[in-house]
């Protein structure tokens, strides 16, 4: 599936930029990332913000490399302090070492002790002084120039990126920014690193995971979306709304999530592939509707962008703690599809696959993305188009014997769409007989329970159910956004000559028991890695009987990202 396993054996460079409200740390990071992209690097930018609604202190974390970047590293090579106000809010998110460098402005005062404590080098650059020499000059642009130099990025690439990102602010602003950037860039001619720039690539994308889910939705054929805004999922909807209508589709902003889920069920009953996106609290409100979609066999896809839970929790930070509700959160016996993208790039394929699987199997598909995927900006190779031969089975010429919920060899029954003569039926959330007439008889219940189970259990999902890499007698099982850090660990081990098997599960339900068991057959050590408190995947795999008793769990809740070093320690020391 991906060529990312090389990443960690290759070099990468990590930069964190922090500043208080209004200092522009995020813009600085974004320009830096795209400048690196102009040089041909791939990369990732995540961000962290304080509790303010807007404009509070924030940090932008950028990492770039010749190869795919799918997580932040253990430490930052470079920390750029636009100022030091409220830095304690971020300190634990910004690990440094004695190999790190801190770029700081003497005018901002001394570098705080908690940053210096690990022995990082300090390089002082008078951001403020330089900026104040320019009318309207902003110190973050000076810092950007100095940072780009340290990163060894080409000045022209940096200038292109400044123009691209600040372009809509007007010419004057761009001009001043360029001057400031040059001041920073030219003050000191000693680039600290010399990652070889691969040269700009024509097929690189700059995209967030939320946008990538949007692309996947469209590729999968989604043409109707109803949704209610929620952090951190709204950008999926905001990206889709203007684009859907260009493709003959539409997005409806609903009054709440109860409406949005039932709206997409209605639309899908009408034959249009439909999707919604939400996060934990919204998903909670949708579970009744999901049951209806499942029993009426109306395909729908829900992208759930996970955030810290439970309840309102930590809306702006990432966590993988909605696996339980995704798999088990419906009342009754309710098997359905649960998938998780393994990287920002994979958001495209996984969402496309989910939509088409839902259509093909006439059921509910849940896609578990999370804040760290959804709201991070990545420079990736453009994901190739994949044609999947998965589509809704439609009955175009129903006869008098037509049965909406007929038992068929694959347990999927052809759907007659409104408008089709002779195929009239009533879809129902009540248990029913094959015709769709409500029934409370044991035989009908059992028949339809079996149908809904076996259409999933017996379907051949092929090889995409997981990314499996490496070999050896040790194995890490992971899912979703934790995959990036796990793959980095695999790369390290490989570089050291030891090898490990990595199973990153994309299709969480129905679990591919036989394939998993097969892969785990001769393992001496199995570690299950995920970003939550309870070890939800770990317990789920046990529930499904695929894990050896000796398997271990590394479960770390959000909001801090799971770092490769932490995983390596768990591998070594028994969790």
């Amino acid at each position, binding site marked *: 599936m991906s060529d990312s396993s090389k990443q960690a054996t290759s070099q990468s460079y990590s930069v964190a930029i922090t500043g208080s409200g209004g200092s522009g740390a995020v813009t600085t990071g974004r320009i830096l990332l795209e400048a690196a992209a*102009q040089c041909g690097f791939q990369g990732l930018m995540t961000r962290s913000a304080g509790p303010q609604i807007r404009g509070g202190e924030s940090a932008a974390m950028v990492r770039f490399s010749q190869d795919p970047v799918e997580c932040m590293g253990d430490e930052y090579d470079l920390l750029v302090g636009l100022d030091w106000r409220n830095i304690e809010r971020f300190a634990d998110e910004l690990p440094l070492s004695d190999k790190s460098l801190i770029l700081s402005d003497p005018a901002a005062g001394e570098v705080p002790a908690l940053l210096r404590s690990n022995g990082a080098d300090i390089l002082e650059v008078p951001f403020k002084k330089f900026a104040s020499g320019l009318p309207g000059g902003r110190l973050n642009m000076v810092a950007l120039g100095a940072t780009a130099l340290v990163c060894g990025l080409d000045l022209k690439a940096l200038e292109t990126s400044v123009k691209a990102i600040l372009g809509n602010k007007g010419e004057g602003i761009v001009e001043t920014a360029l001057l400031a950037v040059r001041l920073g860039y030219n003050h000191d001619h000693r680039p600290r690193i010399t990652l070889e720039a691969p040269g700009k690539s024509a097929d690189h994308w700059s995209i967030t995971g939320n946008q990538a889910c949007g*692309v996947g939705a469209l590729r999968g054929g989604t043409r109707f979306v109803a949704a209610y805004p929620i952090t951190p999922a709204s950008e999926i909807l905001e990206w889709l709304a203007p684009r859907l*209508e260009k493709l003959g589709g539409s997005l409806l902003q609903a*009054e709440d999530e109860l409406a*949005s889920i039932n709206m997409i069920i*209605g639309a899908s009953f009408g034959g249009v592939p439909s999707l919604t996106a939400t996060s934990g609290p919204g998903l909670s409100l949708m579970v009744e509707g999901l049951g209806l979609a499942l029993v009426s066999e109306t395909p729908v896809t829900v992208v759930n962008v996970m955030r810290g839970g439970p309840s309102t929790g930590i809306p702006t930070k990432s966590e993988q703690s909605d696996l339980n509700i995704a798999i088990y959160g419906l009342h009754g016996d309710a098997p359905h599809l649960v998938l998780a993208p393994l990287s920002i790039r994979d958001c495209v394929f996984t969402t496309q696959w989910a939509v088409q699987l839902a259509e093909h199997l006439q059921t509910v598909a849940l896609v578990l993305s999370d804040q760290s995927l959804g709201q991070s900006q990545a420079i990736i190779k453009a994901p190739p188009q994949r044609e999947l031969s998965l589509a809704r089975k439609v009955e175009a010429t129903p006869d008098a014997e037509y049965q909406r919920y007929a038992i068929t060899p694959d347990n999927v029954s052809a759907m007659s769409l409104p408008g089709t003569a002779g195929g009239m039926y009533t879809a129902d959330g*009540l248990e029913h007989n094959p015709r769709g007439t409500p029934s409370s008889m044991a035989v009908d219940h059992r028949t339809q329970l079996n149908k809904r189970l076996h259409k999933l259990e017996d379907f051949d999902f092929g090889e995409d159910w997981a990314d499996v890499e490496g070999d050896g007698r040790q194995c890490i099982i992971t899912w979703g956004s934790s995959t990036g850090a796990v793959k980095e660990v695999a790369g390290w081990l490989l570089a050291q000559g030891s090898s490990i098997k990595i199973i990153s599960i994309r299709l969480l339900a129905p679990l591919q028991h036989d394939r998993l068991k097969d892969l785990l057959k001769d393992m001496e050590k199995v570690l299950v890695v995920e970003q939550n408190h309870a070890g939800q995947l770990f317990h789920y795999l046990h529930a499904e009987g695929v894990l050896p008793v000796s398997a271990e769990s590394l479960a770390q809740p959000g909001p801090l990202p799971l770092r490769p070093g932490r995983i390596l320690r768990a591998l070594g020391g028994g969790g």
Partner: protein
Amino acid sequence: MTVPALKAKDYKSGIKAVWCPGCGHFAVLSALTKAMAHLGLVKEEVAVVSGIGCSSRLPAYIDTYGFHGIHGRALAAASGLKAARPDLTVIAAGGDGDGFSIGGNHFLHACRRNMNMAYIVMDNEVYGMTKGQASPTTLPDWSNSKMTPHGTGIPSFNPAAIALAAGAGFIARGFSGEPSELTRLLVEAIEHPGFAFVQVLSGCVTYRPDQKLWKEEVHPSESDLPTDDPVKAAQIIQAGDGKATGVIYAKQFPVWQPENRTDSKLNTIEKEFLL
């Protein structure tokens, strides 16, 4: 191609209704199929969407497409269907509990949104299917439910007033005991371009035997109706006894329907991510 005209009975599915003998909902079923026949609707181009309740069982008894959803969400499902399939005639239906209690929010927003659909609420001032609890339209002193042994003590919900305040463009009241008038109202509702709300007084013989009195109490509205003046409509609704039938208010507002502008390819859209 000329198709032989369908009769009301051709719109019935033949599935035996679970309703109690004498239930008002039978008359609504009849009136609706008559309205469909009158309008010459093509069966497969109609979808009847409902929630949960005795009344919400309606779709299965009609030989069009039907969607029997979950409690309170009929209008949401109907709105999604209509948004995605503007070619269909969409009729939402349900009870007073389904529509005004658990479904109240969707009612508010469907009135505002003004999509082209009819919404029929079979109002029996009770939760029939769950065996007789008070609904929002139940009078405050009705004390026959053990859940509210002294009555709810809460003034009853005025569906027409809410619909008007929320911006509905067609508001009518019918009675299952006046089937031909009801048929006429349903015809007008389906023909109205936009959201058309019909409250049908449809008695529950089992839990509200007192509603037999409706035969005497219900009467055609005495005002000169319909009006298209919201202030006048508000006056009429506020002053009324809730038992006057007819189209109270009819006014055309812009109908909301998402616009599909098919002028691009996905390939082109994806180009925006290139650096």
